[in-house]
């Protein structure tokens, strides 16, 4: 009897070790998932859920909650198993690196987060999370938006209170002039990383050249400076001198400008216009809808999807990301596409015609975009330059 038991124990140990050795890693599962159909993924997801899995996903954008709800309606056997939690931009890269891999209960399985450079530095480069992108979508999403995968773009635009008529802003250097002192509203870039990334991008060769050209157009002389490295730094210096930080969020900037002094201008998230009361909405004008601006009209930043390396539900995460990249996920009821200021990287998803907005392609030539590698390499220099000027 003892001998039989011993054999059984050894056999079980061997089987367990083999099972562990053969277990698919999350990275392998995501690679496999990339070439699967949604039906196949759904089957795999059902297995994960049946095994007790649950997808805890964090997001900086509140529309993700509705998207998850729509997703579970379309895939009813996953109902209640995709759990949304809101996360603040400033806390994202404190919480996620601490919790992923710690094995804590209900830790994050996937996240929809902004600030690509930090995503790269804190999660992807450290192997704490993986990017996943479905092969079926490769033709409809530009290559540079696939790794890490972009779920939505969000833009921040120059918007002003039109109570005194047009402000005639047609060159971005106007905002560095003393007449704008205290009248430009922008969220403190040391507290809002996407604002910081935007300013950092202006120091890049591409954007400093564009700013140098705009400078010449505006002042009539070529940009020359011994004080600043390039035109980008000079613009940031002049702009930050004029910025007023009264409002602590994009929503407050939108509502504050709409009900504040005529002539005030903000550079804030376009989609926040939905927070402005209808009675005040008419007070606001988007500069770009009035005229072209030499330089740029604002900036655009992506929200990325990333999957934790220790998730127990890689296939469910993959299916959810697939869903978010489709019309059903991005354009479903009360989701991103029905609002101004959100743009899918999937080029087949168009903005509704009745919305006062323009497609992604329109904005792509007028707004400043993040370049992960540039910010990653120049972060400290640019951050210190900006932080000293914020005060």
């Amino acid at each position, binding site marked *: 009897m003892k001998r039989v038991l011993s054999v059984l124990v050894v056999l079980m140990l061997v089987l367990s070790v083999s099972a562990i050795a053969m277990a698919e890693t999350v990275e392998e599962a995501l690679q496999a998932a990339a070439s699967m159909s949604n039906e196949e993924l759904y089957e795999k997801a059902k297995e994960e859920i049946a095994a007790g899995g649950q997808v805890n996903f964090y997001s900086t954008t509140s529309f993700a909650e509705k998207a998850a709800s729509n997703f579970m309606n379309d895939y009813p056997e996953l109902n209640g198993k995709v759990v949304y939690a809101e996360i603040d931009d400033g806390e994202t*890269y404190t919480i996620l690196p601490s919790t992923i891999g710690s094995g804590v209960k209900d830790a994050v399985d996937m996240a929809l987060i902004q600030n690509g450079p930090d995503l790269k530095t804190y999660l992807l480069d450290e192997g704490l999370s993986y990017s996943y992108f479905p092969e079926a979508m490769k033709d409809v999403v530009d290559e540079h938006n696939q790794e890490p995968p972009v779920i939505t773009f969000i833009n921040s635009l120059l918007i002003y209170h039109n109570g005194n008529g047009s402000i005639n802003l047609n060159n971005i250097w106007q905002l560095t002039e003393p007449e704008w002192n205290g009248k430009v509203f922008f969220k403190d870039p040391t507290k809002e990383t996407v604002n910081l990334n935007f300013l950092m991008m202006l120091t890049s060769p591409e954007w400093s050249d564009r700013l140098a050209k705009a400078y010449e157009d505006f002042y009539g002389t070529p940009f020359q400076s011994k004080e600043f490295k390039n035109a980008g730094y000079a613009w940031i210096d002049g702009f930050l001198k004029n910025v007023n930080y*009264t409002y602590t969020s994009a929503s*407050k900037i939108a509502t504050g400008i709409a009900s504040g*002094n005529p002539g005030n201008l903000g550079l804030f998230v376009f989609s926040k216009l939905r927070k402005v009361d209808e*009675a005040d909405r008419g007070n606001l004008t988007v500069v770009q809808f009035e005229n072209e601006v030499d330089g740029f009209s604002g900036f655009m930043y992506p929200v990325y999807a990333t999957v934790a390396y220790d998730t127990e539900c890689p296939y469910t995460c993959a299916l959810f990301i697939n869903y978010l990249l489709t019309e059903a996920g991005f354009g479903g009821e009360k989701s991103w596409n029905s609002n101004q200021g959100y743009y899918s990287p999937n080029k087949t998803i168009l903005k509704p015609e009745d919305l006062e907005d323009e497609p992604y392609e329109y904005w792509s030539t007028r707004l400043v975009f993040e370049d992960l590698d540039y910010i990653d390499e120049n972060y400290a220099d640019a951050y210190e330059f900006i*932080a000293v000027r914020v005060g």
Partner: protein
Amino acid sequence: MTQLKYRIKAFFGKPSNILLVVFLVTLVVLSLIPLITMLSNMFTIHLGTEKKLYRMEVGSYTLKHFQRLFAGDDWSRVNFWTPLINSFIVACGSGVLGIVIGGTVAWFITRSDLKCKSFISSVFVFPYMMPAWTLALFWTNMFQNSKVGGGNIGMVESVFGICMPEWFVYGIFPMIIVIGLHYSPFAYLLIGGILKNMDATLEESATILKASRWTIIKRITVPIVLPAILSTFLLIFSSGFSSYTVPVFLGSAVKMFTLSTKMRALIQAGYQGQGYIIAFISIVLGCLILGINQWFTGKRKSFTTVTGKSGQVSLVKLRGANWPLSVIMIIFTVFFAIVPLVSFALESIIKQPGNYALSNMTLDFWVGTEGSTYETGMISGILLNPTMWSALGRQVLLALVVAMIVGTSGMLIGYACVQRRGTKLSQAVESLAFFPYLMPAMSFGTIYLAVATSQNFKFLYGTFAILVLVASVKFLPFASRSGVNSMLQIAPEIEESAIIFGTPWVTRMTRILFPIQKSSILSGYLLPVMSVMREVALFTLLVPYARYLLTTMLFSFNETGYSQYGSAVTLLIIVVIIIINNLTNKLTGASFDKGIGG
């Protein structure tokens, strides 16, 4: 060997020694481990910016964070020296203001025949029940005007057409006012508790000896309440110094930053080492003040005011000044305690900010449903929202659990420290119990996050238990101070008499010491309730999601601009605190304010 055994037995034969040893071990684990974690973070390279900037391995040791922060260039001026000066001014100003206002009100309530005491006493504590930043929001709602900030019109300009200058609306001045007012009820409670229990014969003797009223106040009243004043100043100073939310709402507009806002910004930007140095410096400053306080109280040994000889308090007759003073006091109290509530109530029902017309009002933010036009960010108005009720339930439960732990610990620490006053063990426990207060809540939360996500303690992360743990340690100083202060007032002869009669320790505590100082000890239970009910910085990193607790939900609303929901939740928090206060009053006869007069 036998002698040592007997000495140990004799040592542990005294309940106060057992208590001191138990608390010493617990507090070393819960306070010093986080501190050591923080200290090591000041000298190590972290993932991200620091790794890239210094091209060093994560975890390697360096002094570069110190070099950078104290270099004396623009970077250190902007990130350290200027915020340090600002924090110091705010902390000192609010400490002095809090004591002046709280002490004055306490004196009038306990030592004079002022009219409407009950009303003033119960309403005066309201600002302490509100999260401090909501008072900051009230201030801007009142005084913002077309000449400052974004030109949004506040109530004062709307009603009176008066535009206050920028320094009045934003910057150091309103920060001092708001923090000072927020903590003045705290000064009122601590100083008032001492004044109420003070032996009246001291003043009566001085009166018989023909001392003037001013001489009595200067030579008798003030020296007796001085330890409480110093303790209160220390607590308000530390709170003001590490205040994060008030500077965010009142300083940003005029680019006025404090050390805590810079600490958060540096940590967020990946300069963790420099952020933790700032946290450490605020702790060192707090320790310096604690040292001064210890030196002072040590010099005077104790301030016995409850001797069992006289309980009669003779009230100062205000005579002709009574009504004018009462009216001034009522107006002042109403403006800072009732008007904010009215303002929050109004803000929670208006659709368009600044427009108080009836046509602009709606109850959708309270009882709206999903179909509601003004549904923003929530699936329904807060009263119909299950998320809000869950958050409220957790917050109340947390407050009660923490109050039980902290209140009981504070009383026992107070008893043990006073019994063994002058010993190193007693000093160590008293200092350790106070120590967490000197750590900024934000960094305290960050350190506990690091501990809770480490391999050995991962079972704690995202749980209710970690919130209980962190809040119990953080708010212990309130209760331990209250415990020490109240036990210091009791003459040792009272317990000694009971010991002679062979009364067991538990009976002495529950039948003699506790009843004598019931009001002070119960304030040790109630203060943590208030603190937990309005705390956000401590919990923000430890809650699994922003809407887990009511305060983290509220801060998220206020920061992101859901002002109507924010105002509604603020009102709700105050109502809950008032209910808890009244329930305590009904059940125990004590209340947050009643212990000292009213």
